[in-house]
């Protein structure tokens, strides 16, 4: 691989991704191990593009059942009302809980879609070697890396409702299979974001 001349990789140096120490490769013992924290060091994350693509495609596939199947069913007096992600938000909005409806909308719909779209765009930009708006793309990556975890709100909400509403025939909340798929979407996008190596953006722009 050809690294840009101002990159540390060209000079046999790299930044340990655990402790951020600047390490020269390979260190005296021949092991590619950080002398400060003893973690393995790489010039770039191994197979970053392939892994990120695989995890993103997993997320895209899981996203379909996550939205089709109910995430939970509220059973009241023996009659169940299944709720998907979208219908849950509609119910909140219909009850006039606008701030919470917007919060759940952002966390459950906007953030996962944004993460998938942005990561796919970043992967394509790396593979095509775009030089366009590098700093903005780097910031976009940091942004989706930070916000990804907030999508778990819905899953935690369901676990509390399931534990709290256990009144037999009067009212019961049953978790749905959609919730499991949704958690899979969130986890695989989080893994995808961490397997993507931001430095590839800067590398590919300097071909």
């Amino acid at each position: 691989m050809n690294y840009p001349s101002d990159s540390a990789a060209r000079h046999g140096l790299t930044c340990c991704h655990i402790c951020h120490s600047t390490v020269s490769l390979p260190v005296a013992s021949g092991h590619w191990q950080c002398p400060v924290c003893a973690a393995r060091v790489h010039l770039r994350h191994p197979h970053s593009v392939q892994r990120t693509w695989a995890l993103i495609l997993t997320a895209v596939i899981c996203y379909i059942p996550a939205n089709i199947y109910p995430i939970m069913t509220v059973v009241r007096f023996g009659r169940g009302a299944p709720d998907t992600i979208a219908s849950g938000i509609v119910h909140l909005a219909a009850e006039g809980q606008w701030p919470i409806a917007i919060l759940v909308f952002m966390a459950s719909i906007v953030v996962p879609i944004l993460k998938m779209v942005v990561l796919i765009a970043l992967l394509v930009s790396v593979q095509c070697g775009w030089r366009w708006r590098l700093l903005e793309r780097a910031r976009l990556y940091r942004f989706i890396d930070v916000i990804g975890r907030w999508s778990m709100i819905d899953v935690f909400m369901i676990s509390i409702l399931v534990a709290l509403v256990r009144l037999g025939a009067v009212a019961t909340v049953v978790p749905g299979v959609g919730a499991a798929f949704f958690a899979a979407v969130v986890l695989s996008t989080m893994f995808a974001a961490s397997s993507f190596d931001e430095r590839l953006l800067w590398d590919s722009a300097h071909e």
Partner: protein
Amino acid sequence: MSPEFCGTLALRVCSTTRHRPFRPACRAGQGAAREGGRRHGPVLADGVGYPALSTVAAKPLQESVVEACPDCDLLQSIPADVVQRTTCHCVRCGARLAAGDQPNLERDAALAAAALVLLTVANLFPILEFDLNGRVQTATVFDGVVSMWQQQRYELAVLILLVAILIPALHAVAVLVRSQLLGSAARGRQRGRWWAVWSERIAPWGMTEVYLLGALVAFVKLGDLASVVVGPALYAFAAMSVLTAWSSAHAAGMWAALRRR
């Protein structure tokens, strides 16, 4: 250093200056970065070539410290006196560089001990209490895990157990152990290193602050069904989120304790 590299780094710094107002590599303290009218921006490791980089370049060297940016891999050198006083940021992408981190093991240990106390409260007391025509139900975090398991959603039960209970607790324990060991003699530091690496690896998977928001959404959702009361665990989770944000903002400092040997 090769003259070619020297030239490209100079070009890089110049072009950055042309496009935007000069952005000092060192922001923290603000004043320290511009002492005596002299700009301590990124400077070239001029003439002297690379210092002997046997293991780690982050040790304070005579003139300057060579740092690779963790996010964009730009190689830059920073005056050693700046590194000792301030937090440094990459000139190109603004990421925080390792140089300039200050260890504060006592603060780490104190925050972790507080987190352990709060986690105990968060797990012993109910998050929400729910009253439907006189039938009262309470739920702790662990009740959420158990009910998920009983409803055959095993994967979600395990996931919630991990990210809301086990990982935050393990992280606090690891921080406590590492800050004790890193402050001790050389042999203890070797073991402290292991705890430090693992505390950093599991940190992103503790989601107490997200759980807090999930509980608030559940609170609002149940509002129309019955009367709901917020339990002590919710306040503990709120305090935990503040502590987590505080300690993760300073997490980088502990590596400085290991880098200086």
